[in-house]
């Protein structure tokens, strides 16, 4: 009886792994294109293709890596780059919190450690959209297809950045901002507070880049200060209700 159940679970895991690999394909293709522009950003701060490949393989983050590369370009202090990475990746903290509520009770801690490695907007979205407890093997399948695309795309961007005409580099350079917009705009349609916060942040960030004292700070530090100030203010003025938050 017990043996039978184990076999069933194993078959389930195998199927989930296959489905994960399949669902990882369109994500991987998107990653390949977007990470290319990240690679260009890495190149512009003097990183080699090997270094940007390593960074993407280990970090798996668009905004976080971009912010990190900017700090590298500015020769930021180690503490500053840690803080910048923390702030730019804060949403993964939230996603990890959400995933923690969907883990099968008694699941091996090893699965928790492995599943955490590649929590991204897209991989989180496809994993959490499946019903029931999260199957770690589904996540592993998706990561196995998508993650290499992310790293390879970054390296290609760093390599080809100088082979491409300036026009094309300029055009691909905005791909990341397009991605950011695709993350912030849809929730702004559903949530009035977010809808107000987005233009407010544009304005404050624009102002801070020009304001005395603030403009002397690095871009990363300004991002941290503004994020903490605006998010705290919003949380105090517009706290989320229990069902929403």
């Amino acid at each position, binding site marked *: 009886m017990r043996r039978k159940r184990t076999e069933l679970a194993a078959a389930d895991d195998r199927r989930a792994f296959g489905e994960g690999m399949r669902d990882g394909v369109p994500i991987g293709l998107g990653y390949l*294109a977007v990470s290319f*522009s990240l690679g260009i950003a890495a190149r512009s701060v003097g*990183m080699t293709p090997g*270094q940007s490949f*390593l*960074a993407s393989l*280990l*970090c798996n983050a668009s905004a*976080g*890596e971009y912010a*990190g590369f900017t700090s*590298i370009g500015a*020769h930021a202090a180690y503490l500053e780059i*840690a803080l910048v990475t923390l*702030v*730019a*990746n804060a*949403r*993964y*903290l*939230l996603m*990890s*919190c959400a995933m923690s509520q969907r883990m099968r009770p008694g699941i091996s*801690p090893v699965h*928790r450690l492995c*599943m*955490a*490695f590649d929590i991204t907007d897209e991989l989180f979205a496809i994993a959490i959209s499946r019903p029931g407890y999260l199957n770690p093997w589904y996540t592993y399948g998706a990561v196995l297809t998508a993650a290499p695309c992310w790293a390879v795309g970054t390296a290609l961007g760093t390599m080809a950045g100088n082979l491409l005409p300036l026009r094309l580099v*300029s*055009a691909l350079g*905005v*791909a*990341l*901002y*397009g991605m*950011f*917009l*695709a*993350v*912030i*705009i*849809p*929730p*702004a349609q559903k949530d009035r*507070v*977010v809808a107000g916060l*987005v233009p407010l*942040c*544009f304005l404050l*960030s*624009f102002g801070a880049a020009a304001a005395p004292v603030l403009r002397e700070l690095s871009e990363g530090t300004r991002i941290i200060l*503004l994020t903490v100030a605006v*998010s*705290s203010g*919003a*949380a*105090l003025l517009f*706290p989320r209700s229990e069902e*929403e*938050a």
Partner: protein
Amino acid sequence: MSDNIYVYILIMAGVSYAIRVLPLTLIRRQIRSRFLRSFLYYVPYVTLSVMTFPAILKATQHPVSGLLALAAGILAAWKGLGLFRVAVICCGVVLAAEFLLV
């Protein structure tokens, strides 16, 4: 350059992983604080907005093409197009605009 790029990369990797692994391994029940939950909810939108503008104006050869890409990106995202397509549209707008501007 005295600061080592591999140290930078390792710090980025360590922090990125810590952020993802700590809640998943440590949290076994719902976060209670309403302020903290609200704060965490707003952080991603605020930080991405701050990073997008005015930086997008400097990413291109001409600030006007960056501004056009911003407008096109907002419109495309508003229409519900996904991550990938919004990114491609922004690139296309810059490419087209800079044939005229630069």
